[in-house]
C-alpha cells in the first residue's frame, strides 16, 4: 500500500491507497476508514469509500488543509488491516428467472452454461461489497466468475424494477429502487435493501460479504417480492 493524498476541492481530500481493484485491499480500506472517522471526529462531514480510494469531506470551519492532512497522517500511522471484525456475512434470497431477469436466457446461451448453470455459478461464491454508490444502497459487488462477465447494455433501460439483480463486467449488484440502468438482469430479490426504517438505513456496508440464495417463485412472493414480469420499456 502506497498512500497518496490529493486535493480534490476546497474542503475535500482524496486518499488514494491502491491502483487496482482487489478483494485483498478491503481490510486496509476498512481500517483506514475507521481510523479517519476517529481522527477527524466532528470535523468530518462525509467519508466516501470506493474500490481504491477514500474521499474525505471535512469542515473548513474547523480544519485548514494542513490540519486535515495531519489528521490523515495520524489515521495512517501504523495502520493494520481490519481482520474482518466489522464485516458481516449476508444471505440475500434471489428468484433467478427469465420473467424478471430478461438477460438470463441469453447469458445461459452465451456462456454455454444454460440457465441453471448460470444460477449455480452466480450463487456459488460469496461476493465482496466494494462500494455503495449510484443510488442509496446500491452495492457494487464482485467479482463474478469470468464466464458470467457481461458488458453493460448499449442502451440503458429507462426503468429497472426495484430488487433487480444485474451483472456488469465482473461486478454484480441489486437495484434498491426503481431507476434507470444498463446492467444485465438475471433475477430479482424480495429483500428491502435501503429503508429509513432500517438500522443504519442500508442492509450492507463496504466490506460485507454477500451470498445469493436461489429461491422459487412461491418463496419470493411469500417474502413480499413483486413477481410482475419484466416489461420492456421503450
Amino acid at each position, binding site marked *: 500500500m502506497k498512500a497518496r493524498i*490529493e*486535493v*480534490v*476541492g*476546497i*474542503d*475535500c481530500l*482524496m486518499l488514494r491507497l491502491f491502483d*487496482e*481493484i482487489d478483494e485483498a485491499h478491503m481490510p486496509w480500506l476498512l481500517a483506514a476508514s475507521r481510523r479517519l472517522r476517529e481522527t477527524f471526529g466532528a470535523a468530518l*462531514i*462525509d*467519508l*466516501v*469509500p*470506493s*474500490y*481504491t*480510494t*477514500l*474521499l474525505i*469531506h471535512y469542515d*473548513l*470551519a474547523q480544519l*485548514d*488543509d494542513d490540519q486535515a492532512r495531519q489528521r490523515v497522517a495520524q489515521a495512517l500511522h501504523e495502520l493494520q488491516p481490519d481482520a474482518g471484525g466489522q464485516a458481516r456475512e449476508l444471505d440475500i434470497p434471489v428468484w433467478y428467472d427469465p420473467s424478471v431477469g430478461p438477460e438470463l436466457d441469453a447469458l445461459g446461451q452465451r456462456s454455454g452454461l444454460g440457465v441453471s448453470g448460470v444460477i449455480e455459478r452466480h450463487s456459488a461464491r460469496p461476493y465482496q461489497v466494494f*462500494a*455503495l*454508490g*449510484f*443510488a*442509496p*444502497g*446500491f452495492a*457494487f459487488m464482485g467479482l463474478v466468475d469470468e464466464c458470467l462477465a457481461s458488458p453493460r447494455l448499449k442502451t440503458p433501460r429507462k426503468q429497472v424494477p426495484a430488487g433487480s439483480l444485474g451483472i456488469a463486467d465482473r461486478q454484480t449488484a441489486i437495484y434498491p*429502487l426503481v*431507476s434507470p440502468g444498463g446492467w444485465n438482469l438475471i433475477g430479482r430479490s424480495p429483500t428491502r435493501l*435501503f429503508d*429509513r426504517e432500517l438500522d443504519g*438505513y*442500508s442492509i450492507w*456496508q*463496504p466490506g460485507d460479504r454477500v451470498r445469493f440464495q436461489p429461491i422459487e417463485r412461491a418463496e419470493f412472493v411469500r417474502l413480499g417480492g413483486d413477481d410482475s414480469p419484466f416489461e420492456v420499456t421503450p
Partner: protein
Amino acid sequence: MSLLIERSGAMASLQDGGRFGVRHLGVTQGGAADWISQAWANWLLGNPLQAATVEITLGNFVLLAEADSCLALCGADLAATLDDQPLEPGRSFNIRKGQCLTFAQPRRGVRAYLAAPGGFAAPLTLDSCATVRREALGGLHGDGQPLGQGDRLHWSGAAPELRALDTDLITPLSSAEPLQVVLGAQIGDFSGQSLFDAFNSEWTVDQRADRMGIRLLGPVLRSSRQSMISEGVPLGAIQVPPDGQPIVLLNDRQTIGGYPRLGALTPLAVARLAQCMPGTVLRLKPVALEAAQRQQSRLLANWR
C-alpha cells in the same frame, strides 16, 4: 401560518443545506444549488442560514397566503408578483391573507429562494428535508416529490422587521468574473492543448442542465485516460466523459464516478453556475487552494 400551492410546474422543491453523513451509503448531498442566495433569504429573516427554503426553478409557481405574515425572496428574478405588484428579489416583504404570490418566468438567473420566519416545516429524512426525487428522499412528505398543487407549506416563526440587501451582495447574479477551479490531481492526464483550451476558451451552458449536473459546450478536451476506477466525487467536480465536453457535478450528483476530472469549482462558482441559463457563455480560471479557501472564509464572514 401557511401558504397553499395553487400551481406548480414540478420545478419547485424544499431544500435546506443538504444531507450529510450518509454519502458512504450512496445517498447524494442535495440542498440548495445556489447556497449563497438561500443563505441571504434566511439571513433576511434572522433564520439559521440553512433553514428549509423553497427553491423555485424557472417559474410557473403560484402560492396563496392563508395568513398575514412576512417572507423573504432571494436569488433569480423570476418576474415575481404579489397580487399584481412586481416583487424584486433581495428583500423580505409582508404578505396578507388571500394574496397571491406568482413566479412567472426567468428574467435574470434560474433559481429563486423563498424563505419563511424560522424556516418552512418539513419532516427530516436522514436528518435533512432536501428533496431528491431520484432517491425518493426529503420534501414535504419525505418521499422526494417536488412541491405540487394542493400542497401546504407551514411555518411557525415570528415575523421580524423588513430588510433589503445591497444588490452587490448578491454575488451569484452580479459577477461576470470567470468561474474559479481548484485543479485536481488528474490534471496531468489531460493534453497540454486541452489544458490551454479549458482555461482560455469560452464555454456555453448546455440545455442538459439539472440539479445533478450542468454540461458545458466548447472545445473537445482530451485525457489520456478514458475512465478510471470509480471514486467519490466532490461538489462542483468538473468531469470529462469520452466526448470531451465537461459536466460540472452539482448537489444531486451520484456519489461516486469514474470519469477523469479537471478539478472542482469553488463553492462560490457552483452557486454562480447554478444561476446560469442554457446559452450563457462563461470562462473557467484556475485558483490556488489557499486563495480559494480564503475567499470562502470572506464569503462566510458576510453572515457573521
